[in-house]
């Protein structure tokens, strides 16, 4: 029996695919009986250590397309603004990290384990700090709701996560390289195709609330989405549009969810700051990286 377990464990490792075992007539219960290794592979949850690796790989993929801005003040600004909004989620256990990506494309991204990015191109388009707060809050919602973790699991046809689970469980850092490329492919695939529409609508609803909790004008995110609607033929918005529901649909969904619920907070809200306008000016003047 012991030999069988070892043989089956190796098979699971070698194939990295529990589905093949099932097809070979070995059922879930037998699989679980195989012990620690197999149960690591079959379980439905991703551990915090695995999420940290997923986030790292996803962020590295994004920053592989364009680097962060080198302006320290801009980086400190986005981390303070993001930190203040993240505080309103009650999730101080998340390792929040924020960055401005030096790309003229207009977009914002999140990655597992607390990464949130906005592009220089987005900063150029926004009119006040409450609009930036709305976008950052939308991305924070993706992290809180683990949308990217769930989506990566769903899209994981090459078993990158299964292999990650196996190497993490073994604390085998030498195998880290084996999982790096499949994880990068997975992240690349996800950022090119986008999340489920339902995830985006949920992040819109939560983003509005987080920004309003932080003291900002609740309509900042709504104005940004209306601005997207007015830029439908702009090349710099291409990836944003192809990975999100149509701006009109997002506005209709927010209209339905918000109603007049947040209108009472409007007059006691903050819309802008001198710092934001200075950051926007810097973004306007910042050249794209050479590569």
């Amino acid at each position, binding site marked *: 029996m012991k030999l069988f377990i070892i043989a089956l464990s190796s098979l699971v490792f070698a194939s990295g695919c529990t589905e093949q075992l099932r097809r070979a007539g070995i059922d879930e219960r037998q699989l679980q009986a195989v012990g620690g290794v197999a149960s690591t592979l079959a379980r439905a949850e991703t551990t915090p250590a695995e999420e940290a690796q997923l986030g790292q790989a996803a962020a*590295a993929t994004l*920053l592989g397309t364009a680097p*962060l801005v080198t302006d320290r003040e801009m980086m400190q600004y986005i981390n303070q603004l993001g930190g203040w909004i993240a505080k309103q989620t009650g999730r101080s256990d998340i390792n929040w990290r924020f960055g401005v990506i030096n790309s003229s494309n207009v977009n914002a991204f999140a990655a597992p384990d607390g990464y949130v990015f906005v592009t220089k191109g987005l900063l150029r388009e926004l009119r006040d700090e409450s609009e930036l707060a709305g976008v950052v809050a939308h991305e924070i919602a993706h992290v809180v709701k683990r949308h990217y973790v769930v989506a990566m699991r769903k899209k994981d046809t090459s078993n990158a996560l299964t292999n990650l689970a196996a190497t993490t469980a073994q604390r085998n850092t030498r195998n880290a390289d084996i999982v790096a490329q499949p994880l990068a492919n997975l992240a690349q695939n996800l950022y090119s195709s986008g999340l489920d529409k339902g995830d985006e609508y949920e992040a819109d609803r939560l983003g509005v609330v987080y920004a309003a909790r932080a*003291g900002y004008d609740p309509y900042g995110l709504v104005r940004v989405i209306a601005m997207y609607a007015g830029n439908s*033929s702009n090349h710099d918005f291409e990836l944003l549009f192809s990975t999100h529901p149509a701006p*009109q649909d997002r506005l209709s969904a927010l209209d339905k969810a918000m109603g007049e619920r947040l*209108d009472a907070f409007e007059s006691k809200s903050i819309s802008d700051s001198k710092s934001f306008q200075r950051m926007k000016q810097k973004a306007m*003047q910042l050249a794209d990286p050479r590569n």
Partner: protein
Amino acid sequence: MTRSPFRIIHQGTLVVALLLAGNALATPGTLIRASDLLADAYTDAKSLASLPAEAKLTVLEGKGGWSKVRTEDGKTGWVRLLNVRMAAPAGSGGNALTAIGNVVRTGTTKSAATTGAKGLSREKLAQAQPNPREVAKLDAFRAKPTEINRFAAARKLSARDIPELPN
């Protein structure tokens, strides 16, 4: 000279660009429900006209939950932002003036659109190598609780208890 958002100007479209620049934010829209056109951006402001649903508007600017609009008969006033939908794109071929207007507004030159895999595009995502060194830089910029509180205090931002919105 610093890089200006109006770089396109030297491409020979000076006159058109300047004509459009003052009007760059004007976007066509439609009212989705009957609303009063108000004299100012608050609920109790004086009503200038009663607008029917489906009224065609030009959106001039936004402020909080409000949009400043111009009606087809030339009246200017405020309606709720979520009562307006921006018009659908004018055909995928694009209206030349709209396209120029967008370029003026965003500072994107034609060259950026034609050089292919630049910036954070789908093409670049497919080609790029992961850059873990950039990711590592983020740790140094993480904001400390005292910095976050100073940020909020400088803007007189105070946290509010607001429940999540229904689906």
